[in-house]
């Protein structure tokens, strides 16, 4: 008797406001109109996906003090869009990325619990820890939260939200609560009863050791960039290895890298298509901007099809309090130059190579096989698909790959439950009254 193959989880990312979306493709639609969200979400639900994820950015990107013009920018507010999507979907999980830095527990816990009620148990919160000073300029708290404080605030935020979600008894009686901690000192009566999932599902992104520890202690899902088999296995082993000390099992936390999928009739056609998409995503101007973000100075006189600068980035240029954090920009520059020398790449080709997102490229059959293998070998529990087109970017995957995953027995052929927790196979949290 053979064991059932490991089941994989699928989520859809709405590819807004970044250089993923290929906006000059004639099939590219609005990233703002509700009909775009509705199309992508309905398609994901037809594909029996676990959830639909919206990213967040609380300040328009700027470059050299000017608003960045080259990529898709502008998006509606996530929780509001997801509440509307609850009306046009029945089973799909609805996940909002919301900063733990620029919100307060009482208000956000209430909005999330409301979404869980309005969707009959499909809400999730992707907890990010934005800390940059530019974003802070839009908020009361202002300025900048030191990196050392970002995850202590996020962890206390999630813990406080859980206290609020537990403050009504399961039979619907509100009880006073009080939380007095380092970041929050609050008390009173929460205004929303315990929601259908008990607690909305918690997702974590962010890769630092603090971020991984936070994920192990508090998250149900990790959304990660480690989407190659080697990196994925190492990441899963590391994060899942941290669970035991919190009394958790490896299966209690689902690790899902964000990936692109490019399909073709055969593998060669898919590869050619993928290369074309990368060229669209990294335009000549965008390549120079990417370079300037690392080098920290004006490089507009450089030819995108020519070689990289030989000089190092300005030492003072690491914009650590700004929006873009490359870590050590000299190390990044050295790595890019090495890559360019090794493969004989131009500026634009180097940026394409160095900033690519993990991708499954091939025929539908090859992609299904590769995804199944990926999960079977412990490199991930599933994937967050990041299409490059709105609103039709998931159509081919759902129509062509999902049936093959089902055929292989690694993906559901019907929703068995109605809540996001039931899709993920994770339990409702025990009420801690």
């Amino acid at each position, binding site marked *: 008797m053979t064991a059932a193959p490991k089941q994989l989880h699928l989520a859809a990312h709405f590819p807004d406001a970044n250089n993923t979306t290929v906006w000059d493709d004639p099939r590219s639609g609005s990233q703002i109109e509700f009909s775009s969200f509705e199309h992508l979400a309905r398609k994901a639900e037809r594909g029996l996906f676990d959830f639909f994820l919206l990213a967040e950015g609380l300040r328009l990107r700027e470059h050299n003090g000017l608003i960045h013009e080259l990529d898709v920018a502008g998006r509606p507010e996530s929780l509001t869009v997801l509440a509307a999507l609850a009306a046009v979907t029945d089973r799909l999980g609805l996940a909002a990325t919301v900063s733990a830095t620029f919100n307060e527990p009482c208000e956000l816990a209430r909005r999330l619990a*409301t979404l869980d009620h309005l969707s009959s148990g499909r809400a999730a919160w992707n907890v990010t820890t934005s800390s940059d000073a530019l974003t802070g300029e839009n908020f009361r708290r202002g300025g900048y939260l030191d990196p050392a404080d970002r995850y202590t605030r996020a962890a206390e935020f999630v813990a406080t939200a859980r206290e609020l979600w537990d403050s009504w008894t399961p039979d619907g009686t509100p009880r006073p609560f009080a939380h007095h901690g380092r970041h929050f000192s609050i008390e009173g009566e929460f*205004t929303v009863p315990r929601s259908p999932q008990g607690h909305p599902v918690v997702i974590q992104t962010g890769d630092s050791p603090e971020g991984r520890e936070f994920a192990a202690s508090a998250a149900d899902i990790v959304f990660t960039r480690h989407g190659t088999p080697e990196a994925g296995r190492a990441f899963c082993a590391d994060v899942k290895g941290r669970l035991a000390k919190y009394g958790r099992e490896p299966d209690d936390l689902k690790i899902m890298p964000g990936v692109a999928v490019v399909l073709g009739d055969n593998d060669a056609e898919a590869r050619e298509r993928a290369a074309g998409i990368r060229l669209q995503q990294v335009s000549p101007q965008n390549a120079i901007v990417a370079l300037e973000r690392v080098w920290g100075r004006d490089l507009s006189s450089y030819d995108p099809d020519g070689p990289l600068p030989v000089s190092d980035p300005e030492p003072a240029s690491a914009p650590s309090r700004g929006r873009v954090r490359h870590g050590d920009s000299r190390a990044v520059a050295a790595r890019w130059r090495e890559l360019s020398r090794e493969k004989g790449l131009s500026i634009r080709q180097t940026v394409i190579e160095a900033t690519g997102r993990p991708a499954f490229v091939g025929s539908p059959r090859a992609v299904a096989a590769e995804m199944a293998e990926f999960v079977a070998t412990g490199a991930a529990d599933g994937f967050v698909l990041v299409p490059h087109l709105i609103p039709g970017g998931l159509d081919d995957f759902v129509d062509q790959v999902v049936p093959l995953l089902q055929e292989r027995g690694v993906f559901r052929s019907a929703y068995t439950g109605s809540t996001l927790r039931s899709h993920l196979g994770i339990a409702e949290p025990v009420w801690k009254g």
Partner: protein
Amino acid sequence: MSHLRPLHLAAEIGGPPRYDPAHYTGLARLAERGALDFVTLGDSFARPGPDALAVLSRVAPDTRRIGLVPTVTTTHTEPFHVSSAVATLDWVSGGRAGWCVDVSTTAAEARLFGRRPAAPAAELWREAGEAADVGARLWDSWEDDAEIRDAATGRFLDRDKLHHTDFEGTAFGVRGPAVVPRPPQGRPVTVIDGTADAARETAARHADVVLVRATTPERTAEIRDDVHRRAAAHGRAPGTLRVLAALTVDLGDAESAPEPGLESGPPLAGHGTYYRGGPVDLADLITQWHRTGAVDGFHLTPITPGRDLERIVNGTVALLQHRSLFRTFHPGGTLREHLGLARPANRYARQGARV
């Protein structure tokens, strides 16, 4: 009676807290069937109930024409988030959003946030005015044609049509621009209850719709004239404001002898003007008040939404329609169109800059 301005009607759909969306969708559809301008949903951190803006966003795809106006408080919330959420409600509803500005005055609400103590109403309404002001600026911070998708130059946006708000208020600052592009109505409709002294100035300065709780048409007209005077002092044309009389209505006892007529010494509940009687008498009252020219319309808060809203729509509104005092359908698509309010020009757009 051709001098009469069109009658506007709105209804509150809150009541005892409910968390199932079907309840709210049903009420909003009922109001929509009555061709009401908008429904409101009250909100506060001080008592049980779901987040009103999320509820009305959930209602949006299940309705087509009715305006959706949640209460969104300004005291403990972030103006940047609030403006984004209201703009998003406008996007998901295709231009039917408004927000009813309110403040949180209690110590209990302050303790839920733990950031600052409770403050006097006057101070909080000044801050609410700043929140309304920066909200409008953020809605304008993208000119309507900022998104250009110009493949020839590789530019998605025209940065000259995006504007930092650089707002510095007494309690917060917002650099901007918004992340949400300018919403379909340009600016969603701002509603403020201007009855209380503390709120009047903010209402006159920032509201498109001012609610007034008073027991007689005369008193309502006085408050309205005061609002108009103050609005004019801020450079606004009074004709761009709609003043609605706010009534709490109890139509539960329609069979027995009604007690219509606030004019003849109405029963006053703690929450202002209170009407108890039948739907026909309510229609008469609305007709009389409107005929005096005291108000542009009414905002009705049913004591029991399910029961009373039905009687309002099928009784009161049907009668007003029969008398040709109220429209039978929504001729336009947006809330501003229902209210007869123009889509505001963008304050940042340079006159004649584009040809």
